[in-house]
């Protein structure tokens, strides 16, 4: 077998034979199609990015000067009188890998448990799986950041279009100035100012009552009381996210709309006697919004990243709040997991934007159909 493989001629034969087999040729066709299909290509890229981040985080944590596993093992030995093996076993269960194995095997173990959803156990509260802690905090961040992103996207787009249609008017100048202002000011400063003025100086909002993700003792469910309460607690973080991201959407949409308004098809649509509303929605709006999708990932990263500070300021119990907690208590497995989850959410938001984009732009969608024809 080996001898046969070494001669180039039989290599070719082997390859040909393989390709002729139905299963293989089918697989090849599938791979070919995947490489052409936009959506699949994007999904694969997202998975690849997640994998790279998982790998990088793993090795970073292991190779860092203050390697948390070693630190933990030494703490166990020195403080609780564990033997090295006992300590290592304990560490293995907490970190979801065994420090005595070679690095590569540890890595494989780690990835295997990740795939199963096992993120290890919290150092600070032993016996609690990290995943269950995450599940308690993550929804609030996803909810508030997602709502903030959505509101600022929709509002920013509408205002941007308004600015473009009323170019040079008072409202355009005013909104441009406001947009530039909020784009420039760091989000945590906006949050601080909101607390200082709305909460303390003017006393309009009971900021201490608004802390937490939801009022204690309230039964979760699709009741009016619960939904109002959730919105009540999320109001200030969401407001901050909206205020600090709306500026870029407005300015981007304005310039995109202005250049779309100059397109021939808009003039032609007017010549065809279409109503202004229809032109604004289907001809200007839909085309002007397309280039903005590339920015969604950046905005998502900015909002989710900002949540680390914003949730601290408003004491909103989301994952950003949890991350700071984990860092202050040096709860490494929790930290590592939160960081992964944050990154995955941003990648997920990016992927979602890509999918939406491909739904809206036939030039992307149809490329694949053309390729298969």
């Amino acid at each position: 077998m080996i001898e046969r493989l070494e001669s180039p001629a039989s290599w070719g034969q082997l390859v040909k034979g393989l390709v002729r087999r139905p299963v293989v040729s089918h697989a090849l066709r599938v791979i070919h199609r995947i490489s052409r299909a936009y959506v699949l290509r994007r999904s694969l890229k997202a998975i690849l990015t997640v994998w790279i981040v998982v790998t990088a985080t793993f090795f970073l944590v292991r190779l860092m000067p203050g390697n948390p596993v070693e630190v933990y093992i030494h703490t166990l030995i020195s403080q609780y009188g564990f033997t090295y093996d006992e300590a290592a076993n304990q560490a293995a269960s907490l970190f979801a890998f065994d420090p005595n194995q070679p690095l590569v095997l540890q890595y494989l173990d780690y990835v295997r448990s990740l795939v199963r959803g096992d993120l290890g156990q919290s150092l600070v509260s032993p016996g609690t799986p990290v995943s269950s802690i995450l599940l308690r905090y993550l929804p609030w961040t996803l909810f508030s950041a997602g709502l903030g992103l959505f509101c600022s996207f929709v509002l920013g787009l509408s205002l941007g279009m308004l600015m473009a249609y009323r170019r040079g008017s008072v409202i355009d100048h005013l909104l441009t100035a406001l947009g530039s202002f909020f784009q420039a000011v760091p989000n945590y400063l906006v949050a601080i100012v909101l607390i200082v003025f709305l909460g303390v100086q003017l006393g309009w909002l009971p900021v201490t009552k608004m802390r937490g993700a939801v009022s204690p003792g309230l039964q979760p469910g699709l009741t009016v009381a619960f939904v109002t309460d959730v919105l009540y607690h999320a109001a200030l973080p969401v407001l901050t996210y909206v205020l600090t991201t709306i500026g870029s959407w407005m300015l981007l949409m304005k310039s995109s709309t202005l250049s779309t308004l100059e397109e021939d098809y808009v003039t032609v649509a007017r010549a065809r006697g279409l109503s202004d509303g229809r032109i604004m929605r289907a001809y200007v709006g839909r085309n002007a919004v397309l280039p903005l999708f590339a920015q969604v990932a950046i905005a998502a990263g900015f909002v989710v990243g900002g949540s680390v500070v914003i949730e601290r300021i408003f004491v909103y119990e989301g994952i950003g709040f949890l991350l700071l907690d984990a860092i202050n208590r040096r709860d490494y497995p929790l930290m590592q997991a939160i960081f992964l989850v944050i990154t995955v959410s941003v990648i997920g938001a990016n992927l979602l934007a890509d999918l939406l984009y491909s739904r809206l732009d036939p030039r992307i969608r149809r490329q694949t159909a053309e390729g298969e024809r």
Partner: protein
Amino acid sequence: MSVQNGLPRRQRSVLGVVAAWLADLFRHDKAGFLGLVSVVFFVGLAMLGPLIVPEPGKPDVTKIYQPPSLEHPLGTDYEGRDVLTQVLRGGRSIILVAVLAALLSTAIAITFGSLAAYLGGTVDSVTGLVTDVILTVPQFPLLVVLSAFVKLDRPWLLALLIGLLSWPTLLRAVRAQVLSLKEREYVEAARALGLSTFHILFGEILPNMAPYIVMSFTIGVTAAMYAQVGLYFLGLAPLAGENWGIMLNLAWIRGAIFYKNSVLYILAPVLAIALLQLSLVTAARSLEGLFNPRLRES
């Protein structure tokens, strides 16, 4: 002066070009001019601050959280220190670290961006992949996590970390620009003359991107300030010395926000940072107009 004009006009003195540009800016873009002037003003004030006020404020327990007065125009903090003194002295280290970080990320972006575009092939693909990954990973949480491993007690270390994470956007832009500039006639001419890749890149292509690079550098400074102040505010960088981030942190931790009298204490660093950021962004936008004259119409 823009890229479209082909070879940069080198015969004019740098000072002449800058003066002409400032005059042009004043005429066409009042906001940008104002931004530039205030950047110079704020940065100058922050740099000279420690010279104007050579002594840090002294704690005085009898003067805690005092409202503004003639002696303390912005009031006092939780230890009775003068707030104005702190604001004047607290900008220097923030700006220095931010500039250092932006310099580093700009250097990385220019070097690898232009090399990737110029060499293409594997270099380009690898750079592209790394850029994509760094771009998707949210920067601030990563810094926060790193602060758990690395003690950020030296300013240059902070600058290094921030700088190492904030180059991807500029790198992409540099790469795209170099790719398009590569095909321009004068680069062809330079290649025909047998000039080296290095010379073509740094002698011919990059000078034409100067306004864009300066703009990204400015944006880089704002991003580094954001990350830095954020870390100080959360208490993840050691609270030693005086700077606006530490002021924010202490005002927050010591509950200054809940005293009506000390509203200026907390607002002072907030305003200092916000105004500096705003003027930097405004100045950067006018640079963008310079780079892309189409944007300047309105």
